Each structure stands twice: as structure tokens, then as C-alpha cells.
């Protein structure tokens, strides 16, 4: 872990500024800022308030890109048709920008729109979820599963109390029924389990150090092949009412 005291100070700063704005649910951008400050790998994500900013940021991050709506009122961005993945040119960006905002307006006319986030595009990988919550009896608890149907429909997920050691985190990964998918089936190389172990431990530590965080959801995390790391592509953090 990067130096704990410094990381704690950074995260505390971000969280208190969110509270000052009277918000409890962090946007994707805020959530990723917290995670990055905590040493959890996230894909590069920048806010663009209008088209000209978007064009500028896009040139910096470089194509292909991901475009997502930035609004504190839109939690399910896909449902609002507020996501475009794999934009390859400025022309596409210019077309998509307006389209995205129109879609979200149609979905929820009173949604406050901050703009869009321009994000680094991640190549296809196995997708996993890491989450955390505060259990009323046991406190900080981490969750792991494969993203999508696996976790959401089949409930193929595992839990451990945080903080947890690397062995516990590894056991969490091996415990799910879908583990062979990560270990590598049909001659696929294994996914980078060590990178996932690290993320699980860090997310657990974050929930443990900040009991005011009631929910953390990294969904999905792109787990690349062994040795190539894992990167959080979307994230959501929720704060409790107290404090």
C-alpha cells in the first residue's frame, strides 16, 4: 500500500468535500478519485463539461475511447443509454457527445448533467466485481465475484471480513464456482490473480479504515492475463448518513 497516512488524508479530503456538497452517493469520477488515492488501479477518467473540452481531453488520452454521461442523478448509465464504448475518432466523438446527452435527457428530464467523462478504453478481458459493505454485526466486509450474470443472477459470490490477508483474498477468488474461468479454461491463460488479490485487500482496507463508507462497488474490473494486471472500469461509492 502506498503510504497509509497520506492515502488516508487524501481520501478524507475527497469524502468531506462530497459531504459539503450535500451528497452521499459519489459519482463514477469521484469514486475513481478515491480509489486512485487508495492505490487501486482505475482507467484514466476525465470530466469534460462541453464538447470543446471533450475534444481536448480526447486528444490527450488518445483514441479509442469510452464516453460516459457524468451526472449525480444517473446511477445506471447503461440503462439511460449514457455510455459509448470504443470511439475511434474525433468525428465519432462529436456525433456521440450530443447523442449521449439527448438520451439521458429523454431518460430523466430533470437529471443534473455535469458533462461527460472521457475514459481510457480497456481491451477485452475477463470481468470481475469487488465490493464492500458494513455488516451490522461484523463491520467491514468484502465481496468478490465474476461480473454480470454470475454475480447478479447466480449469486456466485464470496465474502470475507476486512481487513484480510492475501491468503484469505486468494481463497475468496478460488471459492466461487466460476473460478475455472479465471484459472483458465480451453487453453486460455490464467487471469492475473495476484492483481485481484491486491485489489480485494485494498478495497477491504478502505472499508475498514472508513466505516462512514457504507458501500463500495467496483463493477466491472478488467482482469487481464497473468502478469498484465487488473484495472477498474467503473466504480460507485456510497456514504452513510451519520458523521
Amino acid at each position, binding site marked *: 500500500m502506498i503510504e497509509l497516512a497520506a492515502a488516508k488524508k487524501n481520501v478524507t479530503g475527497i469524502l468531506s468535500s462530497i459531504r459539503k456538497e450535500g451528497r452521499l452517493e459519489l459519482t463514477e469520477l469521484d469514486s475513481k478519485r478515491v480509489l486512485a488515492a487508495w492505490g487501486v488501479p482505475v482507467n484514466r477518467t476525465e470530466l469534460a463539461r462541453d464538447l470543446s473540452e471533450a475534444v481536448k481531453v480526447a486528444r490527450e488520452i488518445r483514441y479509442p475511447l469510452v464516453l460516459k454521461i457524468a451526472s449525480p442523478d444517473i446511477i445506471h448509465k447503461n440503462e439511460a443509454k449514457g455510455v459509448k464504448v470504443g470511439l475511434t475518432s474525433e468525428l465519432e466523438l462529436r456525433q456521440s457527445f450530443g447523442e449521449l446527452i439527448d438520451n439521458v435527457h429523454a431518460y430523466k428530464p430533470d437529471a443534473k448533467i455535469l458533462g461527460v467523462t472521457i475514459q481510457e478504453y480497456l481491451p477485452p478481458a475477463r470481468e470481475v466485481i469487488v465490493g464492500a459493505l458494513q*455488516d*451490522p*454485526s*461484523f*463491520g467491514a*466486509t468484502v465481496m468478490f465475484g465474476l461480473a454480470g450474470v454470475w454475480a447478479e443472477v447466480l449469486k456466485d*459470490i*464470496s*465474502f*470475507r*471480513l476486512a481487513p*484480510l490477508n492475501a491468503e*484469505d483474498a486468494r481463497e475468496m477468488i478460488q471459492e466461487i464456482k466460476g473460478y475455472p474461468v479465471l484459472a483458465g479454461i480451453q487453453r486460455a491463460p490464467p487471469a492475473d490473480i495476484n492483481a485481484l488479490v491486491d485489489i480485494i485487500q485494498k478495497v477491504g482496507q478502505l472499508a475498514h479504515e472508513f466505516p462512514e463508507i457504507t458501500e463500495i462497488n467496483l463493477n466491472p474490473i478488467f482482469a487481464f492475463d497473468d502478469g498484465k494486471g487488473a484495472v477498474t472500469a467503473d466504480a460507485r461509492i456510497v456514504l452513510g448518513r451519520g458523521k
Partner: protein
Amino acid sequence: MSGEVKAIFEPKSVVLVGASAREGVGAASPVFFGSLVHNTLHFFKGKTHVVDFSGRLNGSVKNLSEVPSGCDIAVIVLPPKLVMKNLRKLFARKVKSMVLVAGGFDQHQLEELTRVAAKQKVRVLGPNVLAGVINTAKGLCITLEREIMPPCGGIAMISQNCAVGTAMLDRACSYSAGVSKFASIGGGADITETDLLEFLTQDKETKVICIYLESVRDGRRFLESIREAVQKKPVVVLKGSTVREGVERDRIFVSALKQVGALQVSDIEELLSVADALAKQPCMRGNRVAVVTNVSGPAVLVADVLSREGLALAKLSNKVTKKIIQTYPNTSIADWVDIGIDANGDRYKFVLEQVLSDSGVDGVVVVNELKSTFLKLEDIQEVAKAAKKSEDTPVIDIVMCGKDCVLVREKLRGKDVCVYDSPRKAARALCALCSYGKTLKRFGK
């Protein structure tokens, strides 16, 4: 902390306080008071004093002031109002601990009670403790039920609910599984599951700790206590209240228990069958199980259930196989060792000795079929002897027929062998021995 709980489990003197002529059907009714007095006079090896406010029971006194000062436990079978009224007098007798049988205390009364008790350094079990405390070695049986005193043994039980606790005791009696200590927590105003767990971890007579839980107060402290306990002895948890608390919370609980090395069971029956094995048999170093049987059909079912539970069938070494075949040429050795329907005690003895000498065997299941074979009830003693002799490999017994199983259990009563009436129970017991072996390895024991 555990030193203070000691008075509850290991009293030298007990004072029972109630009223034999009260009207009422609650926990503090005269009937229950009568049972408690009976149990204590009948079993308890220490000194018993009875205070009967109605002044009718033989050998009782009417006033608290007539009881000598400094008794280890005061068991109070009075309704809340009377408890509160006599609180000062009770504490004036300088009792070391208190068991409150009746429920129905309001918040104010409980606060008052725990405040005074804490000031006087008196530990309180309850309120609402109908099945209270048992210590078989000392003959202590603070329960409102007659005929519930289990035999002496290595199983300790903690229950958050009295009726479930009573059912656990009843099962222990019918399994003839020996119990060291028992306590139910009731309302848990003072003494908690964690206090009891910490005491039982240090208790020399306790070999395995069973806990029935619905919810936990100081969750983290409780888990830390389990982590400490499992390094000395196995802890088996039966968790209730999934419906009330939801599936996700239950899964978190299950994972947390796994993380600290506790074993989990799904009902009282399994709790007892697993605890019996853990108390009597060594744990398994690996997951390879040898099956020795005098009939092949039931062995098929045993093999199936072992594999479902994640255990493997052991493959005997050539040396051991040869030795068995040389002596008993009709033995069939493949997935299991079928020693034939004509097998008697001697053959069981010889084959078990050979199988247990094989380093590729982590555990042994013996199947005895008494019906339509030449095996006699007496012959099964050899299984008990092998189980007792085997120091690092567990041996457990399955008798497929229900009535025969009762006979075998009766025959082997008091012996260090576990007898099951179904392959599933036996497999669950072996799984527990296997996972506790893993837990010890994890903690470097």
C-alpha cells in the same frame, strides 16, 4: 474475564431461591422450582441451599438471611418484580454469580440489575434461562427439565436459546455423546456467548465447543475468541435466523466463521454427530478415506456420499493389499475393502490393523451389516478397540439398519467410537475431522 465466569460452571455451593406455593405458569412457577431443586439435590456434588419464600419445601429455609454468605451461584426462580424487591438482600449474601430463570424484565429493571451486579462484581446469566448451566463432572444441573443430565464427556455446548439448548442436550443423551459443560445465555444481560467461549477454550475437560447462535453482539470480539479457541480445540457453530436476517447476511456470517476456522453445521442432529466425532477421534491429515465393509451394497452408497462431500477413496498400498489377501483370500479390494458376509470380529480386527498401518489412509469408515450376515453384535467391539488404538487416523462406524444401530450404540456405550445410522452423517463427521485438520495446519499446530 473467564475467571469470573468460573463460579457459574464450577461452584462449590449453590443457593436456589424460589417460592413453592406461588400461583403462576411462567418460568418462575412452583413446578419448575421443584424440578430445579430435584435436579440439584439429586446430582450436585457440592453444597445446596434452598430458600423457599413459601416455607414449604423440606430442608429449605424461608429467608435469604438464613443462607450462609459467599455462595458461588444463586439461582433465582422468581418473577421480575420479586427479584427486584429482593435484590439488596440477594447481594447482601455476597453470592459470586447469579442465574435468572424468569424472563419479562423491563429495560429499566435490567439496567438497575446489571448496574448493581457490576458494582458488586457479580456475573449474571440470563434473564430467561430455563435450561441454565450443566457441569457433568460436578453434577451441576441447573435446568428446569428433569432427566436431561447427559453423560460425562468432552462436548461443551452454548446455546442462545433455551429450547434449542434443551434439544441439544436431549440429542446428546440419546446419542450417548458425553458432555462436559452446557450453558444457555437467555437474554444475555451480562454474560455473553463470548465470555462462555473464552472460559470453555481454557477448560481442560472440554474437547470440542458447540454453539447455537441467532445473532452476535460484539461480532469482532466473538470472532477473535473463535480464532483463539480453534487453535486449541474445534468450535462447531449452528446458526439460526437466516430467514429473519436475510440470505446475504447469513452468507457473510458463514464466511466470517470460515475465515476464523470454525466449523458450521445445518441442524442439531448434524451438530451432535460432528461434535461426537471431534470429541472422540483424531482429525484427518488429508481427505483419503478407506471403507471396510462386510457387504458391498451399502459401500456403494458410502462411496457416493464421500465423493459428494469432497472426500476421496483411499487406494491401499500393494504391501497392505497383499497382506490382507494372504490371510483372507476372499477379500475384495478395489474402491472399498469388502471382507465378506462371513466376516467375524477377528477378521475385522486384522483388516483394520492393516488398513490403519497404510500411510495412504487418512480416515477409515467401517460398515457393519448385521442382517443376513454372520457378523454378531459382540464382534463390533473390535471396531471400538481399533478406533481407540488408532492415534492419528479416525475410525468411525456405520450401521445401516436403524434398529441395529441403536443396539450397536448401546453395546459400545462409553467407548471412544462414533456410530452413525447413515452414510451422510458419517461423511459429514469425516468432513469435520478433515477441515479441522486443515485449520490446525493453517495455524501451524
